[in-house]
């Protein structure tokens, strides 16, 4: 336990959008993001659309070109790996995708999909791959009789189980789950979450769990990182981030979680004005300042540094460092007075 498995340092991803007769647009989708994940640990990565969370997940697996920074998985530095060496390294890390309807090849049977990693990496015989595929099918809670069927015969939840079986086929150390349950119905969603949790403890897996649904992330993550416009604005142990959010954006996100309890109706909700800015034209300084109720002059000038905070983790917010009259004051005391409902 608690051996560092994944180390991501200052990773940036830049996309170039070409258009005829127009300037090439450069979008820095991920900006010097750093985090680590221990063996057997789940890191929840949350953010809204356009926050760069999915791109970060792909960058860790080098599925998108990484502009700068270092990625180490299980002691192997992926940064400069390419071609065959990269393909080989991929056996230790896998991915489960968001849309269960398109992540399986419609022309391949379930068994064929699940055996793909076995055939590619272990060069096992077709028969051995099939035997293993059948085991995996039962491990994720489907029946062996499902092996020769095609994806269209399955529901979303079942397809996601098949995708998970494919991901764990090679006993990887690390799986990126990119919105793995967000396309599913509430009751099915929980079945898949429980499966993921069971597999994690059974095989000592580490997850990077990417989601926009904060309630789910809270349930399964040991630590949480919050992204906004390509940057991690706050990270730390799940309990600390959820109970004492330090960044105004985290606070707003948390207060936007739909609250099912009618007892707590009176609780103040922070409704953020506006929407996430265009990632191609991010605001100067702190990316959140355009929607932040506490924005100060300095926020437009400088990107705040990541600072360690009590209770664990880091936050990138001027309020925590150089907020003149706020220095040292815990943010929680301010919220009630300062936040106006929209």
């Amino acid at each position: 336990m608690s051996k560092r498995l994944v180390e991501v340092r200052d990773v940036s991803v830049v996309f170039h959008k070409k258009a005829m007769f127009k300037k090439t647009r450069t979008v820095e989708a991920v900006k010097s993001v750093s985090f680590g994940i221990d063996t057997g640990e789940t890191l929840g990565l949350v953010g809204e659309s356009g926050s760069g969370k999915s791109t970060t997940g792909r960058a860790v697996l080098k599925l998108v070109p990484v502009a700068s920074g270092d990625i180490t998985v299980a002691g192997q530095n992926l940064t400069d790996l390419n071609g065959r060496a990269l393909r080989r390294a991929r056996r230790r890390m896998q991915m489960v995708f968001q849309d269960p309807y398109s992540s399986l090849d419609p022309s391949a049977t379930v068994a064929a999909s699940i055996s793909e990693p076995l055939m590619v990496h272990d060069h096992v015989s077709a028969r051995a791959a099939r035997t293993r595929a059948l085991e995996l099918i039962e491990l994720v809670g489907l029946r062996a009789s499902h092996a020769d069927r095609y994806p269209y015969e399955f529901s979303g939840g079942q397809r996601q189980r098949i995708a998970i079986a494919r991901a764990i086929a090679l006993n990887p150390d690390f799986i990126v789950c990119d919105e793995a349950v967000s396309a599913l119905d509430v009751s099915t969603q929980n079945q898949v979450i429980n499966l993921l949790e069971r597999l994690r403890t059974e095989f000592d897996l580490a997850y990077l769990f990417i989601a926009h649904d904060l309630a789910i992330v809270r349930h399964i993550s040991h630590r949480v990182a919050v992204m906004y416009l390509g940057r991690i604005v706050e990270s730390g142990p799940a309990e600390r981030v959820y109970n004492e959010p330090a960044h105004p954006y985290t606070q707003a996100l948390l207060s936007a979680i739909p609250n099912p309890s009618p007892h707590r109706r009176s609780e103040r909700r922070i409704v953020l004005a506006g929407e996430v800015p265009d990632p191609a034209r991010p605001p100067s300084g702190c990316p959140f300042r355009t929607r932040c109720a506490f924005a100060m002059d300095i926020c437009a000038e400088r990107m705040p540094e990541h600072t360690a905070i009590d209770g664990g983790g880091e936050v990138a917010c001027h309020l925590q460092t150089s907020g003149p009259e706020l220095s040292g004051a815990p943010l929680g005391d301010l919220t009630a007075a300062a936040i106006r409902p929209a």
Partner: protein
Amino acid sequence: MTQNQGLHSTEPPIMTAGTMPRPKKPEEPAVRRRRAGRFGQLARRFAGNKPALAGGVLLFVILVVTMGAPLFAPYTPEQINIADRLSGPTPAHWLGTDALGRDTLSRLLFGGQVSLAASALSVAIATLIGLPLGILAGYVGRGPDWLLNRASDILMTFPALVLTIAIIAVVGPGLTTAMISLGIVYSARLFRVIRSATLVVRQEVYIEASISIGTPGRTILLRRILPNVLPPLLIQISFLLASALLAEVTISLLGLGALPPTASWGSMLGQAFAEIRGTPSLAVFPGIAIALATLSFNLVGDGLRDSFGRATRKAEG
């Protein structure tokens, strides 16, 4: 249908006029269906589609009678019989004779061989060029894609028929040259279809999944992309066969393709036009033969398109 829904959609797609509520497939289908697979399912849907089935049967019959022409034809196609020239349908000559007294039925059967083989030749050439290049351009993108696209742009600046005729002007008449050049012209059309289908497939998450597994590019091309661009390819091939047949007929009709005394449906029509006042039946029967063959290709193409379903139609662009 389901993949068209938004990320968070949990409700079946909404119906407006024209759509049908498509039920999701049941969890436990009939036991015997298990091994049927995607192409088995396709075959079942195709057979359930009456026009498509009729087209398939018609095509089969046409192929059998033309390829078996030596067995079925009452005369040889070049047998001249001046005494019986330009006869209408008679018991001896069911479909009549031409200006040299040659039997129209026999010439139709043998001519069909020539015409169909010629169209198959040009479509085969188009496939051999268009399929690999289309997949290459769609999968690799960047430079090769740009270059191949410009090349197909250039080929598409000319009507297929005009370009083929121009090539004939240079290298001289003859069916084989004509069909080879036609095949090259058609390869541009096929290239476009395959390229856009590949682009669609390449965007699919299951390709990214294969990459993330560490599957080599070659395996991805063969096992993931190729099977999934087959549907639009098959559809396009059946339509191209219809076009190629028509082009063969046109070129031979103009006297630039099949040369006398070889019978082809086109050359027969060309000769018939001169006699249309006296012996209209000479023009009628080849026309019907061409129409039936074209119809069968089109019906099969439509049937495939319907059987492969909506997703494919999108890929065709």
